């Protein structure tokens, strides 16, 4: 198999059930290598579950996953190819960053501590004190350095910037993108901070109602969605080619966010482009309406 053709992630119908409820259902996606992918969706939709499934921290209840061409498994080879940073950045509290680097050197076959130390020094993070004495932002940088030092091919980050102030977030993203530029790393990062993600990501996975809603290149997603504004009309009068994601009605006006597969022909619509944040929020709103028991039939009379 040509190494270049191996997808970073390939899943079919992947699902995970805890007891009688599904944390993730019917997740199918393909993500090629060399991209920074944003994983977005409402809280509880299954983002953490998905990342854990991809890393092998839990086993699927349904479907299949392949990461870098391999089923996630407990083998040193597989573990060496991936890097994972959990949301709370677990570190050995009483040990220093230097200790962690020392330990990492002994646990991993491929280990580059030089770059890690250089990065931490440039950020002026003390490496000889117990990590419990560092701030949240500093700990996140230590966690990131540890995971980058093992030189993985795919990096999976679960809300790594949740507890960081804006400056710390900017520094985190800069470290991350520098590593991507340097090593051709593939990254999947789950986050709520859409603004930050938009700068850094060129690929998107959107989960809502525990299912995939969107998966693809961000530029394509932007090209496929439009806002339509026009005189009030019933939603079922809209061309069937348009998938309505969000409809806002006033007595005089209809505003739609739609997914299109070609130009909009009806001249009574004013068509404008939509920003990524608005697209994501529209899909997330759908999820909420379904969760609240209102069965909203998109594309039919309301």
């Amino acid at each position, binding site marked *: 198999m040509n190494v270049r053709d191996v997808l970073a992630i390939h899943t079919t119908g992947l699902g995970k059930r805890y007891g009688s409820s599904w944390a993730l259902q019917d997740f199918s996606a393909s993500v090629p290598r060399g991209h920074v992918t944003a994983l977005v969706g409402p809280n509880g939709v299954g983002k953490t579950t998905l990342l854990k499934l991809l890393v092998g921290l839990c086993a699927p209840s349904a479907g299949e996953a392949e990461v870098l061409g391999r089923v996630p498994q407990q083998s040193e080879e597989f573990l060496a190819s991936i890097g994972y940073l959990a949301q709370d950045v677990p570190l050995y509290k009483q040990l220093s960053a230097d200790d962690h680097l020392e330990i990492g050197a002994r646990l991993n076959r491929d280990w580059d501590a030089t770059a890690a130390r250089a990065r931490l020094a440039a950020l002026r993070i003390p490496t000889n004190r117990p990590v419990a004495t560092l701030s949240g932002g500093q700990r996140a940088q230590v966690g990131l350095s540890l995971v980058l030092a093992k030189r993985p091919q795919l990096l999976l980050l679960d809300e790594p910037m949740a507890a960081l102030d804006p400056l710390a977030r900017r520094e985190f993203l*800069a470290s991350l*993108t*520098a590593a991507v530029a340097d090593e051709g790393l593939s990254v999947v990062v789950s986050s709520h901070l859409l603004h930050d993600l938009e700068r*850094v990501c*060129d690929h998107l996975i959107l989960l809502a109602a525990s299912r995939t809603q969107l998966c693809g290149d961000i530029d394509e997603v932007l090209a496929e969605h439009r806002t339509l504004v026009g005189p009030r009309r019933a939603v079922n009068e809209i061309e069937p080619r348009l998938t309505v994601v969000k409809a806002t009605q006033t007595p005089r006006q209809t505003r739609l966010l739609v997914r299109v597969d070609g130009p909009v022909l009806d001249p009574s619509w004013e068509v404008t482009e939509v920003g990524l944040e608005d697209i994501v929020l529209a899909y997330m709103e759908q999820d909420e309406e379904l969760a609240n028991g209102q069965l909203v039939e998109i594309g039919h009379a309301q």
Partner: protein
Amino acid sequence: MLRQSISFQLNPDSGVPAYLQLAQQVKQAIRMGILDVGDKLPTVKEVVAEVAINPNTVMKAYWQLEHEGLVEGHQGVGTFVSRRPSGPPPDTQARLARRLERWVQSARSEGLNDESIEAMLRATLSGSRVERTA
């Protein structure tokens, strides 16, 4: 202080795609004489470490500049300025800028607000004629 030749700034809400903003900033630096023919542009890694954006965006910007013939990329060495963008030299630009300033001042004193000035400018650029309302 950064060690690379120029620094960048992105305005994500401006509506202008990121890669075009970067390309424009390079062109402006060349026009103003900050970058000269033969100077090396910052590496993708340097830009990304400063601005925290996707490396592909930087590469797109540099390809755009290469497409316009302004820079040349040499594998393993870097990207270098190969020619100045067509247009008048910096002092001519400064002179034209001062004239524009004076025009804007007189337009405002005649009662035109900034929005109208912008609209008039855009219309003029796209070549249509505009009727001035008395």
